[in-house]
């Protein structure tokens, strides 16, 4: 085989392999980026923030620590100073209660809001994970598998609610840590999460998500003065398992309202679907250019040699 033909086959082979990779990659990328197979019976929790007493309670925090084998909460429930600043979840604390001043007036009761993983229907953390360590279960909770986690912490970058935390001081087996909605011990068996069970004021209701949405709207309709006319989490970032009712604008109680109703995995999705296309088209384009350049040089060379020959003949 002459070298240029072999070269062509080689380049064509690379192009074909890349195109094949593109074809394979397409359904793979499509699979988990589209809307999750939503189980209509998946569980959720409805939190009525107007009922939470906060101070002198924090039973949910205590129950959570116990259920997950985390160290007990380090400040006693009656210690008011924990509310001086807003807290987030950490490696050893999967839920925290924060206090917000009541926007309807300083004389009004402050608002306490429990914070934990929202268990999104289209979790950004899960779509961001390049080893599928995070997964939305059909029961509703988003769970984590430490056995494949590489520790890149892209899930923490992706989470719109700043929930996943990391064991930065563990050199050998650091894990991403967050609320699992008590999946292993409770919700996978149909039992309510520990925090829900521990709440003395029945702030939280555990049940089928579809039932909870109905319940929430009944509550809003029954007492439109008490509640904002919005169920937080019904549509936010494509819907969450943990939903909130509030007497104050959600933005004022630490629940961001600018996130939109589109599941966050949607944003990189278009980009990802373009990648196999590039893999299919680019090699042919650049390979073709390479061959064109090579051929042009060869012709130039031939032309030059020919020129030399005629020149030599003329001299003779």
């Amino acid at each position, binding site marked *: 085989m002459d070298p240029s033909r072999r070269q062509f086959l080689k380049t064509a082979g690379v192009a074909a392999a890349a195109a094949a990779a593109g074809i394979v990659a397409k359904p793979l990328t499509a699979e988990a980026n589209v809307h999750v197979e939503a189980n209509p019976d998946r569980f959720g929790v409805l939190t009525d923030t107007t009922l939470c007493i906060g101070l002198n309670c924090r039973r949910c925090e205590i129950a959570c620590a116990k259920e997950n084998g985390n160290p007990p909460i380090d400040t006693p429930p009656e210690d008011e100073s924990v509310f001086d600043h807003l807290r987030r979840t950490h490696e050893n604390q999967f839920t925290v209660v924060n206090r917000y001043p009541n926007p309807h007036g300083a004389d009004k009761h402050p608002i306490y809001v429990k914070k934990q993983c929202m268990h999104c229907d289209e979790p950004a953390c899960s779509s961001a994970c390049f080893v599928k360590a995070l997964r939305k279960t059909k029961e509703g909770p988003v769970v984590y598998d430490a056995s494949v986690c590489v520790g890149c912490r892209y899930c923490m970058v992706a989470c719109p609610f700043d929930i996943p*935390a990391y064991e930065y001081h563990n050199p050998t087996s650091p894990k991403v840590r967050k609320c699992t909605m008590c999946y292993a011990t409770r919700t996978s068996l149909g039992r309510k999460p520990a925090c829900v069970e521990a709440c003395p004021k029945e702030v939280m209701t555990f049940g089928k998500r579809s039932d909870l949405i109905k319940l929430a709207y009944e509550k809003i309709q029954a007492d439109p003065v008490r509640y904002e006319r919005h169920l937080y989490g019904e549509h936010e970032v494509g819907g969450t398992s943990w939903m909130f009712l509030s007497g104050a604008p959600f933005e004022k109680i630490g629940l961001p309202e600018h996130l939109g109703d589109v599941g966050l995995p949607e944003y990189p999705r278009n980009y990802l679907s373009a990648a196999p296309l590039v893999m299919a088209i680019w090699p042919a384009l650049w390979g073709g250019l390479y061959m064109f350049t090579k051929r042009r040089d060869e012709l130039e060379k031939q032309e030059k040699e020919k020129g030399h020959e005629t020149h030599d003949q003329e001299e003779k």
Partner: protein
Amino acid sequence: MAAPSIGRPAGSDWVREKIFLGMTPREYVRSLVTPGNAVAAVILAVGLPITFIRFTQGMGAVSNLSDANPWGVWIAFDVLCGVALAAGGFLTGGAVHLFGMKEYKPLVRPAILTGFLGYALVVVGLLFDLGRPWRLPYPMMVSLGTTSVLFEVGWCVALYLMCQAVEMLPPVFEWLGYKRLRQWAVGLTAGATVTAVVLSTLHQSSLGALFLIAPGKLHPLWYTMYLPVYFICSAIGGGIGMIIFESSLSHSYFKEQTKHHPHGEFDKLTIGLGKAGAVVMYMNFLLRWLGVAHDNRWELLTTGWGAWWLVEVVGFIGLPCLVYLWGYRKDNVLAIRIAAVWSVIGLILNRFNVGLIAFNYTSTERYVPRWTEIWVSVMIITIGVLIFRWMVNRMPILLQHPDYAGDEH
């Protein structure tokens, strides 16, 4: 600076010629005692204990990374900047082998070596930043998270590293004197170059696409659907800047090796690159405004963040573009070198803005790197420079091996 040795002497002579640059071991060690090496030694001497602490007490012991700021300088500098600045490798490879711009051939090998080392060091940097670095192959073989942009980045970087390794084989075999292997490696170059261009365009943009999933966290002046386009285009700008910067440094530092390439001729290449730089920077400048126009963010330009955005876009894209242009019109090599360094700083500024500064902009808990984090990054660059010098002193990277004079590769 001794020139690389040629041919294949036998036995201990081989070691002496190939490794010790023709000196006895004693002479060689003595030749290493230089101010530059002393600085490198100090950097390594402090860096090694930091490394030890990192891998025995966790990354929390040496970094200011936190739950609120999971990515710090190790990602923003080592990965985001490292990959972008290594773009010179695929740019020169593509220009010479695909576009047939033969006059730039002397710049191909140093640029590909820089690119190869850049990528290899990105991986070294990742070892520090990943919680379980020994699981680096997991996304490739154990559990494939195909919905993640990071999955694409991981695959592309791994494959691209291999491509560049293939492109580095000819000079390595020339150094070792393996003629037949060298011929075989040269045959692979075309495929490697094409694959490298494909992979580069993909993963340079993927690095920008990483942030598409966090619309609420990255400031809207930086967050646009064009992020992937910005990243590939700015990498081309930064890559050109790096080729100019790195080749100018090499030409003055390794004088002995670049004698064959007269200064006048080299200056012409620099001016040609300056023209390309001007065009690319102009494109980048326009693209950035396009994002503001598309998302209608004009009102944000009057805020503090807007001022910072203008510093980046006007100060570090627009101005170096003008300096490039001026240098090209006036045949002023110095101006082009200044513009090159300027645009490289601009690129670093951009990656820092996206990865750290404009990221988490609403958070009350701001990230400031600890000195040990920066030291690790500096140590990694130092290792890169040392390896670059070691290879350039031995292999035909800057000069052409006389056995293969007139050869295409």
